[in-house]
Structure formats: C-alpha cells, structure tokens
C-alpha cells in the first residue's frame, strides 16, 4: 500500500477537517457533537439546545455542498441501493444510533478520542457488523442461475 497515495492523503485531510469541526463544536457548546445526537435531539427539541444543532447541520450540508461544487473528485458518487433498501437502512441507522448512543462521529471520533471504553466497544461492534453485512450482501447470497 502506498501510504502517500493522493487518495489516502485526501482521506487524512478530510478526516482532520471532520475532527477539527467536531472539536470546535465540542469546545463551543460543551456537548458531544456526534451527528446522530445532533440530529436526534433536534427531533426532541428543548429550548436553548436546538438552534445550535440546526446551525451545525446546516453548516455540514453547506460545507459539503461547497466542496461538491469545487471538486469533481469530492462530488463523485456511486451507489446501487434501491429506495426500499435506503428506507430500511435509514430506519436501522436511526434506531440503532439512538439506542446505541452514537454513530461513527459520536462514538468513533468523539468517544474514542476521549478514551471512552463504551465508545470503543460500540465502534468495534458496528464496524464488525457492517463488515459482516457487506460480506453477506456481496458474497454470502448466492444468486440462482448466476
């Protein structure tokens, strides 16, 4: 593997920006800015706690939008998921992240970044299950006549 391959450096840089944005939000609000929580708590609004969450979500959409416009590489997209799969997956992700208390940013970055053991466990679980799910979808399901 070429560690200094442009793709990897781009991923590292993008990750650093994600970390920086998370850190700035955390430092400003003193609340963990895992995205599942940021959205989740907008859905259960409380006075004084909702406006910043909406602001951050809008910022995320805008920041991504700017990059999509500036970089064809950033704008590349490939997916073969049907609407049914997307709805099912969305339900699972929404339910699972709130039940589990976080997602890739909440547990994976903010939790592990603070050395929290429950986030390490959660991350290992969702990473492992996701990899198993991909394996089952791509390799484990034998198509008839294939």
């Amino acid at each position, binding site marked *: 593997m070429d560690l200094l391959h442009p793709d990897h450096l781009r991923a590292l840089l993008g990750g650093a920006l994600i970390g920086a944005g998370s850190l700035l939000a955390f430092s400003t609000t003193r609340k963990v800015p895992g995205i599942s929580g940021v959205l989740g708590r907008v*859905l259960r609004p409380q006075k004084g706690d909702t406006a910043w969450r909406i602001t951050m979500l809008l910022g995320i959409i805008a920041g991504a939008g700017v990059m999509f416009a500036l970089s064809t590489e950033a704008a590349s997209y490939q997916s073969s998921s049907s609407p049914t799969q997307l709805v099912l997956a*969305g339900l699972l992700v929404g*339910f699972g992240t709130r039940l589990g208390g976080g997602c890739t940013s909440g547990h994976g970055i903010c939790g592990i970044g603070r050395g929290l053991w429950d986030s390490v466990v959660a991350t290992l679980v969702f990473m492992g299950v996701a990899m198993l799910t991909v394996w089952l979808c791509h390799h484990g399901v034998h198509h008839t006549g294939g």
Partner: protein
Amino acid sequence: MESTTPEANKRPAMDPHAKTFAKILFAGLLFGAGLAISGMTNPAKVIGFLNLAGGAWDPSLAFVMAGALLVFALGTRFLPQLPRGQSDPISKGLVIGAALFGIGWGLVGFCPGPALANLARLGQVNDSLWFVPAMAVGMILVQRCFDLDR
C-alpha cells in the same frame, strides 16, 4: 457517554450569542467539507472499506478516522476545560444499538453525517431523500418507545 438519568434529560441551555452560532456554523462547514473531501459522501468508498473480501479493499475510511481522531484527541488533551466524560456501562442497548446501526450502514454505506451532507446535492443524488426521513423515523421510535434520551 452522556448521562441517561431523568434529571439529565433537561439539557443545559446554550448561551445564544451570535459569535457562538458563527463558530458552530463554521464547525459544521469544516465537518461537511471534510466529509466531502475524504470521499465519505460517496457510499461506494465506504462499502469499499467495509468490503474486506472484495479484492480491491479501499482503506480510505481508516485514514479518515485516523485524521479525525488525531485532531480530536489532541485537541481534547490540550484544551483542559473540555469535559472528558465518563464511559457508560456496556449495556444491552449499546451493543444491540451498535449492531443495528452496523447492519443499516453496511446495507447502503450511509451513516448519519454523510446522509445529511448529501442533501446538498438533491437533484443530482436523491438517495438522501429516502434515507434521511427514514433515519429520523428510526430515531423518533427510540425516543418514543424507550424514552431513552441518549
């Protein structure tokens, strides 16, 4: 991570100065730009990482996590006023929740951040129109069924 006791369900209000919101907006801009630059808004790259047996393994997501963790961990270390927090006990909810999230993520390659970020390209890419409302419904179900404000 965050307390789930009833008293803690009342979340402290944030000081609503314009400067504070400007910082948060900027934080979101950084986050969203990072998602796009790193390719995490492209589900094929995410699945490429999760697909260990595919033959063309894409390690990008690992580099994204490494970059993010480096910045966040160093930042929390050197900004002592930030709440370190405490690990919650490893509960059934944590494990089952993480597993369900993993299934959904593995199915289509979307987690909450990238799905929301992709709302920026509705018209060209419409997958978020299906995923995001469903995700919101899933979240509301947890909050209504379990009354668990995590």
